[in-house]
């Protein structure tokens, strides 16, 4: 698949043409080091805490958290009700809480309504349950087109919904983030929550996908 890559003004892609130094810092690398230097001198940062944050988001927090929330909602109707009523508390009860004090709202897909999440402002995303956003979520193309032409965007993700299914687009903010609860796939009666969670893809919780179908996979 051919994709177009644009590069920023600092031109990450022409480093190769430069004469070879032993070491080279791009503008961005050097800018971040410069910020760190100032902040360290002012005693505003703790390097160990920085490392812990990177480690957390690279390895520990990811869409598996959200998948467990969705699977539980599929399996336990009481939990689903709580999630509908107060997603912030229901999700926090599973140990997943946001670092920015943001509120969560869970939006449930039905045969009548499909939910799609975007952040037109910047890239607000439910980190606590989905980890960090994928590249496309942060791109202007998605941020603008999800609102104008959600059905076209879904088609590009390979999701075609019946004409009768309404698409609701939710615009995230710094204070309120959305988690889509996809429809539970057919043929999953009696599955454990762990098994169900395996069907819940990241994209299905943003609304650009559906939960995986069970064809060809054993519970």
């Amino acid at each position, binding site marked *: 698949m051919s*994709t177009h*890559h644009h590069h920023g003004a600092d031109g990450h892609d022409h480093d190769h043409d430069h004469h070879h130094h032993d070491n080279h810092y791009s503008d961005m690398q050097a800018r971040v080091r410069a910020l760190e230097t100032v902040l360290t001198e002012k005693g505003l940062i703790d390097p160990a805490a920085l490392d812990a944050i990177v480690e957390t988001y690279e390895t520990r927090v990811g869409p598996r958290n959200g998948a467990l929330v969705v699977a539980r909602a599929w399996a336990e109707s009481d939990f689903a009700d709580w999630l509908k009523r107060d997603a912030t508390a229901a999700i926090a009860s599973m140990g997943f809480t946001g670092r920015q004090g943001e509120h969560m709202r869970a939006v449930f897909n039905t045969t009548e309504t499909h939910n799609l999440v975007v952040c037109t402002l910047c890239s607000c995303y439910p980190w606590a349950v989905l980890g960090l956003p994928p*590249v496309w979520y942060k791109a202007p193309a998605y941020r603008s087109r999800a609102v104008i032409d959600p059905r076209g965007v879904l088609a590009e993700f390979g999701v075609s919904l019946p004409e009768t299914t309404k698409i609701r687009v939710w615009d995230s903010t710094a204070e309120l983030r959305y988690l889509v609860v996809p429809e539970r796939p057919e043929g999953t009666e009696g599955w454990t929550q762990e098994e169900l969670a395996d069907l819940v893809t990241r994209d299905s919780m943003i609304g650009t996908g559906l939960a995986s179908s069970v064809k060809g996979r054993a519970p």
Partner: protein
Amino acid sequence: MSQCETSSPFTEAEGLPRSAEGDPVFAEPWQAQAFALTVHLHERGVFGWNEWAASLSREVHRPERARDGADYFDAWVAALSHLLAEKGVADQETVLALQHSWQRAAEATPHGSPIVLENDPLR
């Protein structure tokens, strides 16, 4: 298995960026550092998350930004720099001077040795 593997001519024409599930979230270490700095400074009360979102929004909405979000972390770093300047934490001139100092230090450091600011010959 997942729906996002499908590609279409339309996708390619419009250049909607794609990333498979499980892709690394940071393309380069400086992006991870910039991200961690922001989360950390917010937790320490240096700025509110609303202030951060507004600053990032300003940067990502600049017309020259790439349609596919390839320069998203460039925008992130610019947003952080501006916010810290506004807050009086780090003025732009100081940061720019240090940025150049780090670049000179990198060039002056032999391969295999750790790059430290003291290696800047003009420092």
